[in-house]
């Protein structure tokens, strides 16, 4: 029985049916199909909520192996990571309004979240100084366009010269639209092509491809 259930044809068929139902519902107004597609979408929303927990298992496997191997410079942090996670989770599952949980998330999590996200600001400045050279026409256009947007975004651009925000606004609202529209369009073409391949069972990466 499990040999039959393991067959990849069943998975590919299921994927195709489920995706096809959603496509059919969009293009043809058949109430029964719409009802089934809606039910399946609700199922997927529930399944997606379970998916968040998968990251925990993977993270724990990595960090437990660090602790077992006593990886130099890493294993004490792995113990801290797992211990702090267990403590916070237990407290949070008991009561999210509890002072320790509330304080930790409003101060520790928010601070670290914004800080780690902001760290790339330093790197982009360093990259602009070291790598942003107009070696050819394409690079020059990229730099000029970027600078005009900078002068449009910062009110100081208008203080330097009234024309800068006008030019920057033109680049944002008109100049870049053609190129961005293309990137949107070709991304959609790629998405549709990939989607058709997936629904027809030609793409197998999502389930491991065995």
């Amino acid at each position, binding site marked *: 029985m499990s040999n039959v259930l393991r067959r990849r044809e069943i998975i590919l068929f299921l994927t195709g049916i489920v995706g096809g139902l959603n496509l059919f519902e*969009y293009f043809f107004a058949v109430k029964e199909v*719409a009802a089934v597609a*809606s039910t399946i*979408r*609700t199922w*997927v*929303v529930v399944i*997606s*909520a379970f*998916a*968040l927990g998968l990251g925990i298992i993977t993270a724990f496997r990595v960090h437990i192996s660090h602790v077992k191997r006593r990886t130099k410079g890493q294993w004490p942090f792995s113990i801290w990571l797992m211990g702090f996670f267990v403590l916070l989770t237990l407290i949070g599952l008991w009561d*999210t309004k509890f002072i320790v949980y509330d304080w930790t*998330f*409003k101060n520790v*999590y*928010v601070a670290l*979240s*914004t800080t*780690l*996200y*902001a760290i790339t*600001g*330093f790197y982009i*400045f*360093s990259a*602009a*100084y*070291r*790598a*942003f*050279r*107009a*070696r050819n026409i394409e690079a020059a256009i990229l*730099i000029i366009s*970027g*600078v005009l947007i*900078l*002068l449009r*975004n*910062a*009110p*100081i*651009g*208008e*203080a330097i010269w009234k024309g800068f*925000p006008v030019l920057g*606004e033109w680049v*944002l*609202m008109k100049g*870049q*639209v053609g190129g*961005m*529209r293309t*990137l*949107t369009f070709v991304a959609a073409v790629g998405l549709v092509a990939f989607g058709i391949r997936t629904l027809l069972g030609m793409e197998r990466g999502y389930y491991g491809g065995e």
Partner: protein
Amino acid sequence: MAYEPYLEWREATTEENEMSKNIWSKMAEVDRRVLYWVMFIALAIPFISPIGLPVPVTETTKAVYDKIDTLGPKNIALFSIAGGVSAWPEIAPSMVAIMRHLVKREVKIVAWGFFVDQDITMDMIISNVPELKTKYKYGEDWVYMGYIAGAETAVAQLASDVHAVFKADKYGTPIEKLPLMQRVKTAKDIDLVLTVDTGSYILYYIRHWNVGKGVAVAEIGIAMQADMIVYYPVNLVGVMIGVRGGAEYEKLIGRLAEGTVRMDAINVSHILFIIAIALANIGYVMVRRMKK
């Protein structure tokens, strides 16, 4: 390095020694930590000594304001949080300003989101817009449904059947006991979607709420979402771009706050970037000339 690394050690030529002493080459090799400190200090200066330049309002932000100005107590707006606390410095000013405007217009508000830390964001908004607790009655004037997983699937399913996805609000109150949610069953019951976005959720709303159901959608996005301009004005009512959009909206509602304060730092940092790019290119040209 100004020159390619050598595989074998040898004495540098006179010409190479001259080039390496050149100021442009030295500038190109400056330790990146110096650059980081320069940026760090430069960002601090405008907070200590504010510049206070006015922020002109742009068309796409004004469009969002004008749309909300047409709404009133009979309308329902959806406030969708698709951004995490990590993006607060960019999107918090816009979120607070928009919420203040909605409350001023007495628009009914349904809020939900797709990020696990959005409860902290909602708490932040409530603390900055206390009218949500003092003027509005929870359950009748506004509701917060909480987090839902599923990305595009959730957005699409919410468009066709909200009650199939949410059985209760964030606080556990069954959806049948929320009077406002008896008016909201599908996307067509919403008059305006305001999506606070750091990624692809605006596309999901355009695909399934705007194109699918004809609902007006506006974006409150990070600056990198400015490429959504391609959907304006056909699919999007308006686009608020990052902290600049927040500062513009604060000016429109007549209540300057965090976004406006932050624009001073934006001014300094952007000028610093332009100087850095200019120096990089001047140095590149000078080094190339010297090589020739």
